């Protein structure tokens, strides 16, 4: 029965690795300037994790195969190098491995979070609420009017609680239900939560950030491929969580300018 267990472990280990090697299930292709750093870090980690996984499972299986049901014959064999060898291997090999992963991974993280947006990055505000995202563009004045939570009213479509009567900056703000951005232009995304925690997850953009009620955060990214992509909520926000999404349209600069004009006219 030990031999059967050994074979089962090896079959499971290899079968588990096949979809990874064959790239059977992959996220949407990267469309961002920083995404390749995340993807390569992920792939490097997969090599290290994959080798560790297969090595441990196969070694486990081999020893089960070899020693299950065996009887004492003379002196007991001890694993070459003994405990000191194994502990040393764990400390040196795994220590080096995790330090390397940590160090290289820092670069990808720093690119996303430790570099400020460029001065000419385009500001867009996104507001997450149960169960929709809304977007706001500052209009020609380049400034967002302040949010007055008490004035938020879905019935009158005052989705951001704007007060154009008193706030001059609000008068040219453009509010939309979908997010359009020009290709190859850095976006400075300002994130505001209306009610509970949500998340802004765009797998194709390699962007993922929670909305924190009471704390406005910001992100910046650049999309490199024209197309339509999904923005989904990944932070449990209530009964409609699964259905909370919006579309991100990456357009040429000319198409974006047209789109913005149309949206401004529709306000």
């Amino acid at each position, binding site marked *: 029965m030990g031999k059967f267990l050994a074979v089962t472990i090896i079959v*499971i280990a290899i079968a*588990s690795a096949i979809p990874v090697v064959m790239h059977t*299930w992959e996220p949407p292709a990267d469309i961002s300037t920083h995404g390749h750093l*995340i993807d390569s870090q992920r792939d490097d980690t997969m090599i290290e994790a994959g080798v560790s996984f297969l090595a441990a499972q196969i070694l486990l299986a081999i020893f089960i195969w070899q020693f299950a049901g065996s009887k004492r014959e003379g002196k007991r064999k001890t694993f070459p190098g003994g405990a000191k060898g194994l502990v040393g291997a764990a400390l040196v090999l795994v220590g080096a491995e995790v330090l390397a992963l940590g160090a290289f991974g820092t670069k990808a993280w720093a690119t996303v979070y430790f570099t400020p947006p460029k001065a000419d990055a385009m500001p867009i505000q996104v507001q997450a609420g149960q169960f929709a995202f809304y977007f706001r563009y500052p209009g020609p004045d380049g400034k967002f009017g302040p949010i007055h939570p008490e004035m938020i009213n879905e019935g009158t479509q005052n989705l951001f609680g704007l007060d154009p009567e008193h706030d001059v900056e609000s008068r040219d703000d453009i509010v939309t239900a979908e997010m359009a951005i020009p290709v190859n232009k850095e976006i400075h995304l300002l994130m505001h939560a209306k009610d509970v925690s949500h998340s802004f997850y765009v797998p194709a953009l390699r962007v993922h950030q929670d909305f924190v009620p009471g704390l406005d955060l910001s992100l910046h990214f650049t999309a490199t491929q024209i197309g339509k992509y999904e923005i989904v909520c990944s932070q*449990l926000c209530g009964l409609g969580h*699964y259905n909370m999404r919006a579309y991100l349209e990456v357009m040429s600069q000319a198409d974006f300018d047209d789109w913005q004009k149309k949206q401004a006219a529709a306000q």
Partner: protein
Amino acid sequence: MHEVSTAPAAHHGPPTTFIRKHVFSTDHKVIGIQYYHLALVAVVVGMVLSWLMRIHLGWTNAAIPGLQTLSPNGAPGGVMTPEYYLQLMTMHATIMVFFVLTTAPFAAFGNYFLPIQTGAEDMPFPHFNMMSFWVTLTGFLVLVSAFFVSDGPPLAGWTSYAPLSAIGKAAGPGQGAGQVIWATALAIFCVGQLLGALNFISTVLDMRCKGMTLSRLPVSAWAWFITSCMGLTAFAVLMPACILLILDHVAGTSFFIPSGLVINDQLIPHSGGSTLLWQHLFWFFGHPEVYIAIVPGMGIVTHVLVTNMRRPMLSMKAILYSMWALAFLSYMVYGHHMFVSGMNPFSSLVFSFPTLMITIPSTIVVLIWIGSLYGSQLRINTASLFALGFISMFVSGGVSGFFLAQPSIDIMLHATYFVVGHFHMVMGVAAMFGIFSGTYFWFPKMYGRMMDETLGKIHFWLTFVGTYCIFMPFHYLGWAGNVRRYAAFTDDYLKPLIPLHQFISVAALFTGAVQLIFLYNFINSRFRGKPAPPNPWEGTSLEWIMPSPPPWNNFGGKDPVVYHDAEQYGVKTASGADYIMQNSPEQALPGGDGD
């Protein structure tokens, strides 16, 4: 610290009535069995909930027979609503994490065997111990009562992030009474576990019999001791966090609710709170909780393996130090749950390195287990099969930690099924394998009868293959960006993944059904199993020197004396046995295979 127990031989008398013997018993063994039975009931409830969830995830519009009767609002016509899915999910996770994975390996086996393995007649505070169980049971009953309030259980998940969990009814179904019940149940549970942890710690420090130095304690006792130390600090944080959450609901406080929140065009009348505060408090408890679930399993599996390999571990010290390292590091890493939460991105790097470092003690333990198999005389029985399965699962679940420890990769994998696969594999399935291994190993001692080995092996094989079929594909789903906690998959990029979900659902229903074999074996063996000898596995620790089941006062009113550690296997003795029991003054003869 006393090196030798000075406790009197009998600090409480024999139980005289049925109630004192079986219900409100102060006997640690009865309390251990009560905890085990509570975990059994809880795991059945948790598993049925997971069946319902998996049917819904595979076939979203399927009508589930009988579900409408259970919840007319949650499943009109038997088809689950999205909110009911989330409510069942919250209850599944809460029940499994707290009332199965914490109670079975730690409270149940620990209560039963820790005093015995230390050579004590009972724990130092038997009434606190009794209270610990009844308080925990109350917590369970309070939690389950959430099914019966008008809006049903909460839907905010077992992590219950604020402000969804703090705002109240306006935030969604179950977020009023259901959420308060949830927080109350957990606060009660924490009290029970704190009482238990205090007892465990003082048993190990103060109740050891003559000769039982700390270095002679069996590894399972060490694991329960380490777990108690974690429990004492972790539950002490969750309890006040839950109380603060309750206060936000019932006392108008705003610990977790900032100003300016709007639901249904209504301004929420709170201000000044911090939503991230809940996450910090919860995960400061939550990450050690992962180790509270798995470290006892590691101890049990090491104990089972060393008995069945008929040789000492290559280095038991390395295993013990690694378990301590895991316990210590578990407090330094909680922020890896919050990489994209909005906390300072620099903190993410600070939390990332100790998280990666956790790989080192984990690897040491795994390598010592595997290295010790080399040259062993491994006996294959159901207990050792589950122990070997544990190693395989622990490795499979562990390596995905490489990814989740890195904030940059977490950008893609956070809150996806990759995380669900990771923690189910490590703290769910591996911990369950530890529980099963312990059950098949100690059942004869606890109930005085042997379990059926053939049924046990069938149970192992089907469970081993079945759980891999469920949880390995979770990683593929997450890899493709499949977000967790979705009641249905309607996004364009998720639709192609539905067939994989259906495969998982079939595997989950099958593997769940396989557990009926275990339940049958457990109940049948309890009443009709072969009578168990005192030491069926030829073990060395003190539980094997007493009859099966042991008398109420464990060692018959005498204090045992210990001469060895619990690893005297593969030795040469005058009687021809290949082991020496801890309480035997016999010394190994030269020429054993360990020489």
